[in-house]
């Protein structure tokens, strides 16, 4: 159903815009020069709820009260990511998108197929309004994630925060079989899974989530592979690294040392109940894992996080980056600049630290570290995650338009292979399907 909706929206948007006679080329040079953002009001659609939503509203109020241009940002909860995407596509078609919107990289690419966003490079590098020498203070992997090769290197978003894919490990279970440290390589991982698997105690190694393509990406990059060509001209899914990753996981399943989870978040369930020694998940789930472990019927146990295992123990681990960015819609030069100034303000270290304290997301600025030292003291796993961030080779999934559909195809192929399908034929078919989707969704 979701697939049908995405496809319909993807196909419908260019038709609607075409029928409205919009100029797809746009005028990039006039976007900001000479603009005066004073007194401008802009709308920001975001996905934050609960404490994060409250904190976002407070920060927006702080910005509104303190910015020298008297810019007013109206922050609006617009639903979860997928609903924001649907809403945004409809709003672009109707010609009234918000000036600022949260978007994953592939979502912003879909919007940009219709020339709906601003290339933020003009703001980032501007001598008056830009980042200047502070650019070196940003984690390079974070801000490079929004530079989209499919659109000639246009910067379609700017990161407000990030999280990482890590391995969660049940240290109590590992120690009970004589393992003192989390595995660093896939060979060690398999050996540890075998050691902890005990049918009588109903314990096993890895709670395998085959429902999320991001986990497949984490496996592939750990073996030196990628999902996309570096020039942004297509997918690379039928690769030796993809094949090795899938065969490896099928092997663990067949040995009975890994188990597929029936539904999303069931890996947390088995982990919290002390059944599964390992899961792969985002650092944004730290709070949930903590609650799961604390709810264990025999009391909390020792657990931790570590980098996702790699092919070799040496060198920086390749780690999957998570997180949506803020994108600026095409509107007036004044509003576009106002949106950028809010983003720039949000990315400053004090605001980054304030946001990290509530959301537990990583700040995008290195200098924010000293402002969140209390978080490291309070939560050893958050501190461990930060250490991983600093040593890791950060990688990101393809920012292509239509990647949502390719993600679905990847998880379907992964499930097929895990269930025994021929890996060569499955990956060949996956590549054909991805190529077609790439072509159909291309700008």
């Amino acid at each position, binding site marked *: 159903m979701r697939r*049908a*909706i995405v496809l*319909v*929206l993807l196909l*419908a*948007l260019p038709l*609607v815009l075409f029928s409205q006679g919009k100029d797809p080329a746009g005028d990039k040079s006039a976007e900001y020069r000479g603009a005066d953002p004073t007194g401008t009001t802009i*709308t920001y659609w975001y*996905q*934050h*709820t*609960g404490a*994060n*939503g409250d904190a976002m509203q407070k920060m927006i109020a702080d910005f509104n009260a303190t910015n020298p241009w008297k810019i007013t940002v109206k922050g*609006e*909860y*617009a*639903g*979860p*990511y997928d*609903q924001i995407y*649907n*809403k945004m*596509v*409809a*709003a672009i*078609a*109707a*010609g*009234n998108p918000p000036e600022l919107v949260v978007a994953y990289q592939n979502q912003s690419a879909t919007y940009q197929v219709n020339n709906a966003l601003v290339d933020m490079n003009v703001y980032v590098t501007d001598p008056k309004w830009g980042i200047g020498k502070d650019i070196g203070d940003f984690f390079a992997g974070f801000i490079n994630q929004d530079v989209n090769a499919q659109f000639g290197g246009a910067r379609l978003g700017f990161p407000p925060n990030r999280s990482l894919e890590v391995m969660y490990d049940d240290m109590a279970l590992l120690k009970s079989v004589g393992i003192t440290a989390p595995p660093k390589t896939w060979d060690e991982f398999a050996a540890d899974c075998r050691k902890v698997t005990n049918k009588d105690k109903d314990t096993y190694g890895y709670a395998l989530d085959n429902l999320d393509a991001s986990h497949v990406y984490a496996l592939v990059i750990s073996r030196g592979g990628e999902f996309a060509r570096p020039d942004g001209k297509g997918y690379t899914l039928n690769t030796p690294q993809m094949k090795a990753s899938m065969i490896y996981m099928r092997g663990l399943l067949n040995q009975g040392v890994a188990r597929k989870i029936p539904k999303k*978040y*069931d890996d*947390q*369930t088995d982990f*919290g*109940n002390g059944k599964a020694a390992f899961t792969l998940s*985002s650092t*944004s*789930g*730290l*709070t*949930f894992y903590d*609650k*799961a472990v*604390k*709810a*264990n*019927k025999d009391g909390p146990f020792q657990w931790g996080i570590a980098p996702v295992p790699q092919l070799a123990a040496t060198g920086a681990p390749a780690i999957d980056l998570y997180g949506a960015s803020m994108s600026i819609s095409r509107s007036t030069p004044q509003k576009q600049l106002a949106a950028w100034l809010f983003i720039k303000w949000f990315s400053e270290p004090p605001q980054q630290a304030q946001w990290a304290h509530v959301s537990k997301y990583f700040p995008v600025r290195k200098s924010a570290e000293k402002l969140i030292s209390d978080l490291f003291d309070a939560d050893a796993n958050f501190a461990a995650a930060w250490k991983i961030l600093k040593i890791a080779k950060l990688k990101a999934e393809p920012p292509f338009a239509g990647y949502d559909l390719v993600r679905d195809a990847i998880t379907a192929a992964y499930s097929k292979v895990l269930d025994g399908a021929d890996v060569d034929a499955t990956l060949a078919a996956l590549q054909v399907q991805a190529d077609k989707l790439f072509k159909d969704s291309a700008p």
Partner: protein
Amino acid sequence: MATEGRAPRPGSRAPHPGPRVTGSSIAVYFFLILGALACLVPFLFMLSTSLKTIGETITRVSPIPFDPEFWPRVPQWINFVTAWSDASFSLYFRNSVITAALTVAGVIASSSLAAYAFAKIRFVGSRFLFALLLATLIIPDSVYLIPNFIMITRLGWYDTLAGLTVPFMASAFYIFLLRQFFSQVPNELLESARIDGAGHTRALFSILLPLSGAPLFTVAFLAFVGSWNSLQWPLVATRTARWRPITVGLTTFISEAGPQNQLRMAGAVLAVVPVVLLYFFAQKRFTEAIARSGIKG
């Protein structure tokens, strides 16, 4: 009792022997009970999860109600209070009621008028138009999203009650359902009314609609549930909480890192109560209408 031992009076019916218990009836009841339990389990799951701590929603999970893990160790009634207050449920609840009521009123008005025309008025192209109307049933709802949004935006209905209700006040399915029922009413009845001077409006309101309690209720019920459960359109068509319904409130318990299932389920329990009550009091009419319209599930 005073009647004990008394012989049946002449002409009175013999006492009902009661249902005969046969092998096939036992099998039928067995499967019906099984089906009823299968339908009940999701409701029980919703209820039990709404009473757990967030930790228990992650670790204390079982699909079987007989398993102690299915239930919380200590019921967390506070979840209902938290869900109600954290997600502005009182506002969302009011909005849902108003939106659903208006949608139902609009659906009943438009569907009964159109159904009457298709069932009882002969005009050129009526069959073709009816076939065209039925053909729209095969178009997925998602296709309407962008055109509907453009329409309400240009009418100035974005983030208004009109934007939430008007696009859903007409439905091919409801027209079809009512038309099927209206067609079964003998034309002679309407003709005799016409002889007495009644026009189409009088015939519809004084004869057909009073006879159509059950199908009208069915349409009202389905339209109510559809409006009550809708999520995508209210999110697209609104920008503030002013008219957002209860389903939007439920999404606020899902974060990027994971769901707060205990609050989400507490909210779902609160949201489902009106629908369950409605069905509880009117299920007889509902099933009667479905049976009489000739529609099978």
